[in-house]
């Protein structure tokens, strides 16, 4: 097992380099970072501050048209938190997010591992499938989903009728469990390509000789997976996990177009709610307050993993 022990130091503690010239260290990293920082500060940082400010204001259409706003302290937050919608919404948002992220990661990881094992032609075909799915525009994807699962006319209902009968008229969006399943299927279908391709890209970085060495040592597939793949892939895997959780927490268009949060708010998540308040209810202040709360919640939920992610591979 000596060879396996050599695997983790692939990213050796020394990877954080001793800079070649001490004097330039002070400025070089900041100079390299500057373009990204400027763009982000301009387009996200500045609006983000405005978002927080708006959440303390009575900000509706009139404010937008006239530029005159009124500070109302925490009124937006209390209005949002005192509704009886908030508790079930939080539970629903969290559960749906975990279910979607887990589904995406398991299937995506499976696809990435399979791609590594497959022959070149099969691999190209899988790549093609993934990228074709990824390329379908959002509006078309949701429309396809509505069509596939339509009562009377949907292909899925037609197939299910032929398999088990009596499904032809089933309306998926009319019942909370099947509406949630519909959203889950769509989001996982759309998210797997990014996860699979990124993980595969990460897998392809693992030097083949580590596997060969492990194979010579008689390690089985699972051992190799555990001892070589996982440690090597950890930074990318963690990153993809955190990103999936973040994106699935914020899933919006799919729900709005597919179920519009229904039936009876059965598929309304925090973000859908924020949008409804801001744009349908014309209260940008309350919408902003929900967004701030949602972000804070997400930061709290992912804090542990984010910390691990920042440390991953740094050996610090």
């Amino acid at each position, binding site marked *: 097992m000596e060879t396996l022990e050599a695997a983790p130091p692939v990213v050796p503690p020394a990877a954080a380099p001793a800079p070649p010239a001490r004097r330039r260290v002070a400025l070089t990293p900041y100079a390299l970072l500057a373009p990204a920082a400027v763009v982000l500060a301009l387009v996200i940082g500045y609006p983000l501050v*405005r978002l927080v400010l708006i959440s303390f204001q009575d900000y509706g*259409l009139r404010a937008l*048209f006239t530029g005159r706003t009124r500070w109302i302290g925490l009124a937006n937050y209390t209005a949002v938190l005192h509704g009886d919608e908030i508790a079930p919404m939080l539970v629903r948002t969290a559960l749906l997010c975990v279910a979607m992220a887990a589904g995406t990661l398991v299937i995506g990881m499976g696809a990435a591992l399979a791609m590594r094992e497959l022959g070149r032609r099969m691999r190209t075909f899988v790549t093609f499938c993934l990228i074709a799915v990824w390329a379908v525009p959002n509006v078309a994807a949701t429309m396809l989903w509505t069509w596939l699962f339509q009562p*009377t*006319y949907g292909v899925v209902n037609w197939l299910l009728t032929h398999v088990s009968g009596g499904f032809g008229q089933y309306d998926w969006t009319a019942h909370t469990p099947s509406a949630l399943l519909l959203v889950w299927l769509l989001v996982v279908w759309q998210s797997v390509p990014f996860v699979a391709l990124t993980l595969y890209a990460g897998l392809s970085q693992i030097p083949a000789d580590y596997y060969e060495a492990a194979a010579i040592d008689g390690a089985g597939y699972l051992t190799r997976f555990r001892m070589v793949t996982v440690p090597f892939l950890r930074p990318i895997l963690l990153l993809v996990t955190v990103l999936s959780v973040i994106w699935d927490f914020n899933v919006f268009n799919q729900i709005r177009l597919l179920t519009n949060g*229904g*039936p009876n708010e059965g598929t309304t998540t925090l973000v859908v709610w924020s949008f409804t308040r801001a744009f349908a209810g*014309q209260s940008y202040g309350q919408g902003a307050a929900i967004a701030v709360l949602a972000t804070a919640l997400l930061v709290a939920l992912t804090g542990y993993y984010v910390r691990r992610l920042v440390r991953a591979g740094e050996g610090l």
Partner: protein
Amino acid sequence: MHRRIPAALAAAATLVVAGCGGGDGGAKSPPATDIAGPGTGAGKTLTVWYMNGDLSDAAVAAIDRQFTQETGATVHVQIQQWDDINTKITTALAQNDPPDVIEIGNTDVALFAATGGLSDISGPAKTMAQGQSWLPGLVGPATVGGRLYAAPLFAGERAVVYNKKIWSDAGVTAPPATLAEFTADLDKIKAAHPAPDFSAFYMPGQYWFGGVQFVWDAGGQLATRTGDRWTGALESPQAQQGLRAWKQFQNTYSTVASRNLFNLSPDYNAVFAQGKTSAILNTSVNAVLKIKPSLKGHLGTFPFPGARAGTNQPVFLGGSDLAIAAKSPHQALALAYLKTATSTAAQTGAIAGIDGWTPISAQLIDQTSGSRSDLLKAFSAAAKRSVATPASPGWATIESDKSLQAFFGDISTGKSAIPDAARSFDQHLTQALNAAQ
């Protein structure tokens, strides 16, 4: 790490607050009072936004030609898409150089009218109307606090479109005159087509445009107004009766699968073109003919009969208004454009003549209905008894959160008992229609 982020945010905040000082101050534009006279617009260009699919290019060009002749100004037309249109108009009106004239769907006008985005045109509107009474369904939502914020552009309303062949095969040869005749006809058609995926009348359960007709026909209303306060009115005995009639009709003549569907998904025109139904309630026959051109000559139309003999069901009046952005620098010219678009020449020539839409006043409807084809006459007849949605900015909330669709859907599926559904929806109506903007 934890300490650094707030520090960075605070630093950014000071920057932003410093940046916020300038700009954004809303310069109040003078109220629009004077209509630009002949020739005063020479050398100027007016930007006008139209909605995709409403007026044809030819109709818009005809209006623009007339406007250029009258004022000397040229028109720059931009076509906008429906998806997220309210957000688009909202952000456009918030800019310092907005478009001058904007076409806005009649039920959405109230949203912008009451919030300072549009010019008050109450004064010059009297000159434009030239003694005609504009349809309440078009100007009602544009009237807030007694002031008018938009002029009507065109109207569209719903009538029954039916497949003559399916009807005559079932032994029905003439369109019905009363509701009793109508249901008797549908019963015959239903008996002739027992398949579970066939609807004698395809009325998707969430199709609220159909649902409100039953409420209004029974004498009910969506909401009533006392002073400045709106109250949801679906719990009233009349509205309850209308909702029961709706459920009865929907459940009897439309498929079980349609009970929780909206009319565009699946497209009810396609359902009709497929021969899976013998009748639908629609604003025109064009969409059906585009899918299946061979149906030309097999289509008939009539207004949906009302419960009281000799009446039609009151219809939801769709259509559009033209409004002037409050921040537009061309107020007088923009008023002149509204005057042109509402003129008898433009209404009979472009709106009714070229596009076949219903013109904007009862007088003009009478004037044009004689020249309309038989297929279109039913729409003119339906327009005579039209009702507007509540003229509150909050109405946009009801339409965009799709709660009205869900309300009728829940009644059609039987998920909620009618009194329960009405009670909770009344609460939502009251809350949304009175929400401060």
